[in-house]
């Protein structure tokens, strides 16, 4: 990794950490084993940020989506769908790369040295559809249709899968709250097993949860091809050298598909291009170079 690439990578890490600290700034919650209860909790943040994280100042859009769908009063959520449409149309998967706390956790885990990192995952083309199964089944269908006698469902993805909830809410709350420690059972163990598997895989593979399981990533992935934040390729300048693909930790052939739905907009490819053929475009505002050499 060259000097500008390292500088760009450090800048993104600093940006992610600052954003996470800002949106999870209720520090008292970590000390007391409680959560923030202010009015901002009615608002969603763009990334997968558990609202039961002791520091969380706002709500997770996937948790909010499930809870409104599971509610006996509503069959559809205009509020959360509208929020996701606006965020997706502006940013696409930039959210995954820059504004997601669980994305940051995976980025940090991938920095841990290991004998061999896995770049190409066998079955990748099929596995990446798992996140659409998560979205369709665990986030939409099951909360809507599996209901109790009064018509109330439950947030299936949060309950059975979400490792972000276990990491951001489960671990700190159970550690600091004695009454919660008294009631943990096999479901807590199950969720911990998922989280530990994701942690281990994140050391080997770059962002395995984002690639294969995240329902929020699935939403933004569908919108990304039309989002305002996008990359453009100067075909005249591009020499097909493949430096962009080599720099991409998700192994995307950026010179062929600069707006791939899998791209989390980390910007490594833009910085790696020796011909400066890749550019970031936000609506009509273009920037030729993100970081000066």
């Amino acid at each position, binding site marked *: 990794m060259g000097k500008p690439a390292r500088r760009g990578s450090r800048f993104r890490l600093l940006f992610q950490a600052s954003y996470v600290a800002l949106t999870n700034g209720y520090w008292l919650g970590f000390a007391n084993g409680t959560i923030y209860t202010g009015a901002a*909790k009615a608002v969603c943040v763009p990334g997968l940020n558990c*609202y039961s994280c002791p520091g969380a100042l706002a709500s997770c859009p996937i948790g*909010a989506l499930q809870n*409104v769908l599971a509610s006996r009063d509503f069959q559809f*959520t205009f509020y959360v769908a*509208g929020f996701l*449409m606006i965020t997706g149309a*502006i940013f696409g998967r930039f959210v995954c790369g820059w504004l997601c706390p669980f994305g940051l956790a995976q980025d940090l885990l991938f920095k841990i040295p290991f004998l061999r990192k896995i770049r190409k995952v066998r079955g990748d083309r099929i596995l990446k559809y798992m996140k659409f199964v998560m979205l369709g089944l665990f986030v939409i269908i099951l909360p809507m249709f599996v209901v109790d006698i009064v018509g109330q469902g439950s947030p299936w993805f949060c309950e059975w899968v979400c490792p972000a909830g276990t990491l951001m809410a489960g671990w700190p709350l159970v550690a600091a709250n004695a009454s919660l420690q008294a009631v943990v059972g096999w479901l807590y163990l199950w969720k*911990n097993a998922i989280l530990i598997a994701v942690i281990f895989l994140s050391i080997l593979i770059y962002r395995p949860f984002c690639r294969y399981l995240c329902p929020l990533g699935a939403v933004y992935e569908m919108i990304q091809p039309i989002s305002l934040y996008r990359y453009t390729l100067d075909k005249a300048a591009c020499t097909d050298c493949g430096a962009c693909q080599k720099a991409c930790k998700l192994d995307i052939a950026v010179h062929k598909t600069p707006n791939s739905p899998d791209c989390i907009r980390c910007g490594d490819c833009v910085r790696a291009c020796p011909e400066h053929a890749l550019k970031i475009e936000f609506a009509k505002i273009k920037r030729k170079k993100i970081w000066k050499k």
Partner: protein
Amino acid sequence: MKGKNAALLLMGAGAVFLVAGLMRGEAQVVFVKAVYICLECIGIG
């Protein structure tokens, strides 16, 4: 520019959805769930 128009259309539709959701009281459902510790989220169920 097709992509840009589609994005603007989606943003417009999203804004209409958001306001409709607010008027139906969906934000209240989100708020009420988010101010209590979510036992499902932490794995207690």
